C-alpha cells in the first residue's frame, strides 16, 4: 500500500523533472507569463475570478485533503495492528 503510493508519487515527480529540464529557463517562464491571462476554460476562469482568491481556497483544500489522506492511512494501519492481537 505505502509502497504503491510512494512509487506512483515518485514516478510523477520524476516525469515532471525530466519534462522541465528540457526547457530553456527564462524564455519558457516569460512565454508562459504572457500567455497566462489569455487562457480560457471553465477551470481557469474560476480560479481567476474574484481576484484569484480561489487559488488560496484551493491551496487550503489541498492541504486539508493531504493531511486527511495521511491520517486515514495511519488509521487503517492501527486497525490492522489491533486485529492482529
Amino acid at each position, binding site marked *: 500500500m505505502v509502497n504503491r503510493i510512494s512509487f506512483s508519487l515518485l514516478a510523477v515527480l520524476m516525469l515532471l*523533472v525530466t519534462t522541465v529540464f528540457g526547457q530553456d529557463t527564462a524564455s519558457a517562464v516569460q512565454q508562459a507569463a504572457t500567455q497566462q491571462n489569455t487562457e480560457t476554460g471553465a477551470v481557469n476562469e474560476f480560479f481567476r475570478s474574484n481576484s484569484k482568491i480561489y*487559488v*488560496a481556497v484551493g*491551496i487550503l483544500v489541498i*492541504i486539508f485533503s493531504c493531511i486527511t489522506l495521511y491520517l486515514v492511512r495511519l488509521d487503517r494501519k492501527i486497525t490492522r495492528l489491533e486485529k492482529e492481537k
Partner: protein
Amino acid sequence: MAKNWWKILSVMLLLYVIIGGFMVPVPVIGNNQQAARSIFFHLPMWMAMYTLLTISVVNSIWYLATNDLRRDVRASSAGSVGVLFGVMGFLTGMLWATYTWGGTIVNDPKQMTTAIALAIYMAYLVLRMSFTDIDKRPAYRRSITFSRSPSSSPDLHHPRTVDSLHPGSASSPGFSDKDTAGTIKMVLWPAFIGFTLLGIWIYTLRNRYKRLALKNIIHG
C-alpha cells in the same frame, strides 16, 4: 490535558490563520492579486518540513551513536511526515504557480531542487521498506543520513545564490522588515508555529503507532 496544551495551541493558531488569512488586507502586487494569501498556507508547509526533517536527521545521528532502535523509529516517522509536508508544499506551490507564474511546473531552481529532494526522500522511504530485516534498515540509513541532510532543504542549498522566481533569491528581496507588509507577518508567524506543531503532532501519532507495531523487537 497539561501535556497536550501545545496541540490546543496548534489548533487555535490554525483557526486564527485560516480566518485571518482571508481577512487581513494584503498588498496587491502585479498579477498576484488575492492569490498572495496563499503565502499563509504554502510557506508554513516548508517550515514544518524543515522542522520534521531536522528531527529525522538528529535522531538518525543519535541512533548511530547509541544503537537504540527507538531513535531509528523516530527518524523514520519524522521523515515520513516531513515528506507529507514537502508534498503538500509542492502541490500548493504548483496550483499557485499555475495562476501567477503561468505554468504548473516552471524552470524555477527552487521548485526543481525541491522536486529532486522529495524524489530522493521518497526513494529512500521505499528502499527502506524493502529491507525485511529490521537490523539492516538502520544500516542503510547510515549511508543516507549524511548525504540527505543538506539537500533536503532547497533554500539552504542555494540561499540567495541563484536567480529564482521565489522571493529571497539573488536578485529579489527577501522577507525582512522593509519588504513584507505588517499584516502579512501578523498571520504568517502564527501560521509557521501552528503548522509546525500540527506536523509534530502527526509525527508523534505515527511514532506511537510504529513503536506499538515493533514492540517485541524494541523491548524484547
